C-alpha cells in the first residue's frame, strides 16, 4: 500500500493520491499489457566496448536507413522514388517510431503522435502527401487548401473538465473575470500578429516545417528566454491564461512553462494559425499518425529489417563503403554494406553507434529528452450512457496529465467499445531520474495512476474498463528549452558526417510530423545528390 501511495503521489500529487489510498479502493486488476519500448528492451547500447565489425560479402546497397520512424520512412520513400537500392533497419517490431499505432478489440489507436495540423498552402510537400491520402481535396477560392470533411476533426473538438463541469474549448472559462478575458484576447491578437508576419520573400516566422520559416532576428531572440519570462515581460498576469499556455507546453513538448523556450511556446500557437490568424483545422485519424506511417511505408521499397538493432556504423578506410552492424531479433549479427547511410534516430543513439561521431560538438549533440506514458483504454460503450457527448480531445483542468483523445470520435462505426488514449508527459526537471522512476512502475501501477486521474472527471470509469495497454516512452521527444532553436536554425547536427546523413525531428528542436518528414526528405535528397543522381527537390524551399 505504501508503495502505491508513493507513486500515485509522484504522478498525481498528494491530494489525489491520499484520496485514493484513504478510500482504500481495492482496484480489481485490469486486463492489458505493458507494450515494449526501446528502453525496456535494452540493446546493450550502453556497452562501452566497441563491437568487432565482421567482414561481409553481401551486396553493396546504395543506402541503409537507420530508424523506421517518420523521418526514416520519409527518407526511404524519397530514395526509392529516385531509384536507389535501400534497406531500412528498425529496432521495433512495427514501423512508425513515436508515431506508431496499435490495434485491439476496440479498433486501431495511436501509441504516440495522433494528429497533424492542416498544412499551409506553402508547405507544398505536406500538401502533396495529404493529397495522396485523400485529406487535401483541392483549393479554396482564396488559395488555401480544401480539406475532405470526413478527415477534419469532428465537433465537439475539445473540452475541459473545470470546476466540476465540462466546458467547450480548453480555456478555463467558468469564473473568468473581465480582466482574464481581456488578457486572453490580448494574447490572441499577439499570436495573430506573429502569425501574420512575413519577411521580404513572403515567409512566415512560424510554420511547420521550420525549413520554410523566415529567420527574423527578433523572433529567434525569443529562444533566449523562457515562456514564463516572456509572459511576465509582456505583462500577462492572468492565472487562467498561464494555465492555458502551460498546458500547451506540456501537451506539445512535455515541458512546463517555466522551462520552455518562449520561441517554442509561441510556435505552438502561431504555427497552428491560418493566414488570417484563425486556428487551423486538426486532422486526426483513429490510429493517429499511424495512417501516414502506413502510407509512407507503402511508398518506399527495399528490404525491411524489423526487430533489428543497428549496433555500430563503421567506415572503410578508403571511404568506398560504410558498414552497418545489425543485431536481429534472434540476436544474430549481420553486416549491411552501403555507399551512404541515413541516420534517422535521435542523436544520443547516433553518438553511440557511429564510429567517431561522439565529440563532434554541437548544441544539439545531446538534446534533453522527456518521458511520456501513453495508455490505451478500451471501454465498453456503456461508458457513453450517462456522459455528455465526448469530444476528440478531453482535458482535466486539475490534473497533471494531458487528458485523453478518443479515436471513436472520428468513426461512424457501431463498435461496442470506446477507445481512449490517455497521455501523460512527465515534465520534471531531471529527465533521467524520472525515467528511472517511470520504468520501475509496472502495468497495474500505471493503470492505477491513469484510472485515478480519470476518476476526477468520470467517477465511475472503472465500471466500464475492458482493458488498458500501456507504453512508457523513456525518450519520447526532444525538449525545446531555450537555445535549442537557435542551434537548430544554425543547422547544427544537420551536416553530414562522412557518409552519414542525419534525419530526425529533433533537428528542428520541436517534435512534429512535419519536421520528421522534412528532415527525412532533406537527408534523402542530400544522398541523391551525393551519389550523383539527378535531383528535383520536393522540399519547396
Amino acid at each position: 500500500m505504501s508503495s502505491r501511495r508513493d507513486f500515485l503521489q509522484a504522478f498525481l500529487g498528494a491530494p489525489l493520491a491520499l484520496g485514493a489510498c484513504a478510500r482504500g479502493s481495492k482496484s480489481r486488476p485490469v486486463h492489458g499489457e505493458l507494450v515494449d519500448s526501446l528502453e525496456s528492451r535494452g540493446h546493450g547500447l550502453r556497452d562501452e566496448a566497441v563491437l568487432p565489425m565482421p567482414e561481409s560479402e553481401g551486396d553493396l546497397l546504395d543506402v541503409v536507413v537507420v530508424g523506421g520512424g517518420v523521418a526514416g520512412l520519409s527518407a526511404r520513400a524519397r530514395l526509392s522514388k529516385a531509384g536507389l537500392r535501400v534497406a531500412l533497419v528498425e529496432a521495433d517490431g512495427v514501423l512508425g517510431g513515436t508515431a506508431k499505432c496499435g490495434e485491439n478489440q476496440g479498433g486501431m489507436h495511436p501509441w504516440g503522435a495522433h494528429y497533424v495540423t492542416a498544412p499551409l498552402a506553402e508547405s507544398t510537400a505536406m500538401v502533396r502527401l495529404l493529397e495522396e491520402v485523400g485529406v487535401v481535396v483541392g483549393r479554396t477560392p482564396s488559395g488555401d487548401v480544401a480539406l475532405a470533411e470526413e478527415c477534419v476533426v469532428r465537433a465537439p473538438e475539445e473540452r475541459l473538465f473545470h470546476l466540476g463541469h465540462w466546458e467547450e474549448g480548453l480555456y478555463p472559462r467558468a469564473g473568468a473575470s473581465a480582466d482574464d478575458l481581456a488578457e486572453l484576447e490580448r494574447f490572441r491578437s499577439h499570436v495573430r500578429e506573429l502569425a501574420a508576419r512575413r519577411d521580404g520573400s513572403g515567409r512566415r516566422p512560424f510554420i511547420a516545417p521550420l525549413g520554410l520559416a523566415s529567420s527574423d532576428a527578433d523572433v529567434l531572440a525569443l529562444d533566449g528566454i523562457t515562456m514564463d519570462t516572456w509572459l511576465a515581460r509582456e505583462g500577462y498576469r492572468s492565472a487562467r491564461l498561464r494555465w492555458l499556455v502551460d498546458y500547451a507546453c506540456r501537451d506539445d513538448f512535455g515541458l512546463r512553462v517555466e522551462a520552455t523556450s518562449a520561441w517554442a511556446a509561441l510556435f505552438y500557437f502561431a504555427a497552428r494559425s491560418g493566414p488570417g490568424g484563425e486556428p487551423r483545422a486538426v486532422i486526426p485519424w483513429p490510429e493517429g499518425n499511424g495512417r501516414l506511417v502506413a502510407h509512407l511505408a507503402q511508398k518506399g521499397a527495399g528490404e525491411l529489417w524489423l526487430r533489428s538493432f543497428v549496433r555500430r556504423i563503421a567506415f572503410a578506410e578508403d571511404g568506398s563503403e560504410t558498414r552497418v552492424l545489425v543485431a536481429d531479433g534472434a540476436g544474430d549479427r549481420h553486416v549491411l554494406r552501403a555507399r551512404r547511410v541515413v541516420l534517422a534516430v535521435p542523436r544520443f543513439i547516433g553518438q553511440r553507434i557511429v564510429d567517431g561521431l561522439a565529440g563532434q560538438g554541437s548544441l544539439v549533440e545531446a538534446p534533453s529528452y522527456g518521458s511520456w506514458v501513453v495508455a490505451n483504454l478500451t471501454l465498453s460503450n456503456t461508458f457513453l450512457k450517462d456522459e455528455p457527448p465526448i469530444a476528440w480531445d478531453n482535458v482535466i483542468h486539475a490534473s497533471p496529465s494531458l487528458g485523453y483523445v478518443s479515436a471513436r470520435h472520428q468513426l461512424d462505426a457501431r463498435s461496442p467499445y470506446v477507445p481512449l488514449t490517455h497521455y501523460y508527459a512527465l515534465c520534471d526537471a531531471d529527465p533521467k531520474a524520472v525515467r528511472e522512476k517511470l520504468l520501475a512502475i509496472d502495468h497495474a501501477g500505471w493503470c492505477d495512476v491513469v484510472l485515478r486521474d480519470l476518476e476526477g472527471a468520470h467517477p465511475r470509469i472503472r465500471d466500464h474498463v475492458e482493458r488498458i495497454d500501456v507504453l512508457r516512452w523513456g525518450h519520447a521527444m526532444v525538449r525545446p528549452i531555450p537555445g535549442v532553436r537557435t542551434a537548430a536554425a544554425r543547422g547544427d547536427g544537420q551536416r553530414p558526417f562522412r557518409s552519414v546523413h542525419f534525419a530526425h525531428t529533433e533537428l528542428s528542436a520541436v517534435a512534429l510530423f512535419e519536421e520528421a518528414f522534412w528532415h527525412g526528405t532533406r537527408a534523402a535528397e542530400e544522398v541523391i545528390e551525393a551519389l550523383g543522381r539527378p535531383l528535383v527537390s520536393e522540399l519547396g524551399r
Partner: protein
Amino acid sequence: MNDGSFARDSEASAATTVTGARPSLLFLNVFLLATCGLVYELLAGTLASYVLGDSVTQFSLVIGLYLSAMGVGAWFSRHLDEPLAARFVDVELGVALFGGLSAPMLFLATSHVRLFPVLLYGIVAVVGILVGLELPLLMRILEGRVQFRDLVSRIFTFDYLGSLAASLLFPLLCVPKLGLVRTAVVFGLLNASVALWCSYLLADAIPPRRLQGLRLRAFAVLALLVGVLAGADAIVKHGEEQVYADEIVYAQSTPYQRLVVTRNRAGFQLFLNGNLQFSSADEYRYHEALVHPAYALRPGAKRVLVLGGGDGLAMREVLKNPSLEAATLVDIDPAMTNLPHAYPPLAQLNGHAFDDPRVTVVHDDAMAWLSESATRPRFDLAIVDFPDPNQFALGKLYTTRFYNLLRGALTPGAPVVVQASSPLFSREAYWCIVRTLEAAGFFARPYQAHVPSFGPWGYVLASTAPFETPTHLPSWLEGKLRFLDDPTLGALFVIPRDLGPMEVAVNRLDNQALVRYYENAWHRWQ
C-alpha cells in the same frame, strides 16, 4: 417491526379480544389492504418493463416473485406470537413504507443500470413477504371471534375484491391521473392510515404500553410519505415519467436508443429516447407528406432508398407505387425494424411492409453504409427519415458529408426528401438543413405539412437537377391517400412568414452547427 425481533415475548398472555361489531370493519380493511398490495405489484411490473424492457418477462418475473414472497411471509407467520394485533399493525406500517416508497426509489434509480434490478426485486420481495404475513395474522386475530367458515369466506372475498379494485383503478385512474410515483405514495398513505385505524379497532387486543409506540410509528410513516408526496414532482422530473402521459405498452433499451410505445384512446405512439416519432392517429399525414411529393417528381421510380424509418410507415407509402421493383431500408437498430413483430398493431399499421418481397432491410449506420455505395446499383428516389438532430450521433446524418455520400448512391437528378424537424420549434435548424443540402450541391425546396401531434412539420425536397415545384400527384395514388390531393400538394410548398428563411450556417462534421441550433431552440421552448 422496529425492535427487529419476532421472538416470543412475555406478553403472550395478553389474549386477543375483539368485540363483535368490529370484524366487519376489519374486513373493509382487508379490502383496502388487498388493493394496496396489488397496486404495488402492478407498479413494480410497470416500472420493470418500462426500464428493463420486455414487458412479458418483467411482469411474469414480478408476479412470480411477489407471489412466492407472499408464500414465504405466510409460512413465516407461524413464528409470530402475541400480541398479534400489534404485530399486524407493524406489518401494515412496513407494507405502507416499502410500498409507498417503491416507485419513488425506483425512479431515482432508473439511471443506475446495475442498482435498478437489485432494488426492484428487493422491494418486490420485501413487500411480498410483508403482505404474505397479513392474512394469516388477521385470521389468527379473528380466530374464535368469527365462525371459521365465515372467516375464511369473508377474508378471501374481500381480498379478491380488493384486487379487482386495484386492477381497475391502476390503469384507468392511477397511472393517467397520478403517475407512477404519486400512485405509490398515495397508496402508501392509504395503507398507513389503515394501519393507524387498525390500532384503534384492535386497541383492546394491544397492550397499552405498546399502543403509544405503534401510533407514533404510524404517524411517522404518514409524515414521511406526505413529505415524499410533496417532493414527488421533483422526483418525477428526474425520471421520464412525465414524458409518457399514457400507458406504456412496450419498452426496450437497445444499444442505440430507448424505444417506448404508449397507448391511449386515440391510438398508440412511438417514442425514441423520449421524443415522439409518430402517433397512429395522425401519422398518415406525416408519412404521406414525406413520401409523395418526391414521387410526384419521379412517379415511375423503380428503386427507392429509405434511410431511417425503421417503423415501416414510410415504407408503406413507398410500396403504393406499382412500378416499384426494389426498396432498401437502412436503419441502425434491429430492435426498431423488429418492432412490428414485437408489437403487432404496428405491423398492421404499416401494412406488413417488411414482408413485401420487394423490400430489403439493412442494419447499419447509414453513413457507413452510404460510404460503400460505389459497388451498389443506384437508387432513383431517396427518403431520409432520421430522428431530429438532438445529438451529435444524429447531427452527422444531416451534414454536407452525408449528403455528398447520398448523392453518390443516386441516379442523376433523383429526388430526395429529408424530414427536417419543426420549422416553428426550431426554425434555424430547419433552414440549416435546407442550406446544408444546397451546400452539398442539391437544389432544395422546403415544404411543410400540419401534423396535429407535432404542429407544422418541415421537409425538404431536393435533387441534383433543377426542378419545378410538383403540382400533381402520380395517378396511381388515386384513392389511396387520406391527406394529400393535388391542391394540398401545392399548398405544402407555401411557407408562412413566421417560418420563413433565416441566415444560418451550413452543417458540417467539424462544426455540427445543426445540433447547436436544435439545442438552442429546445432551451428557448422549455
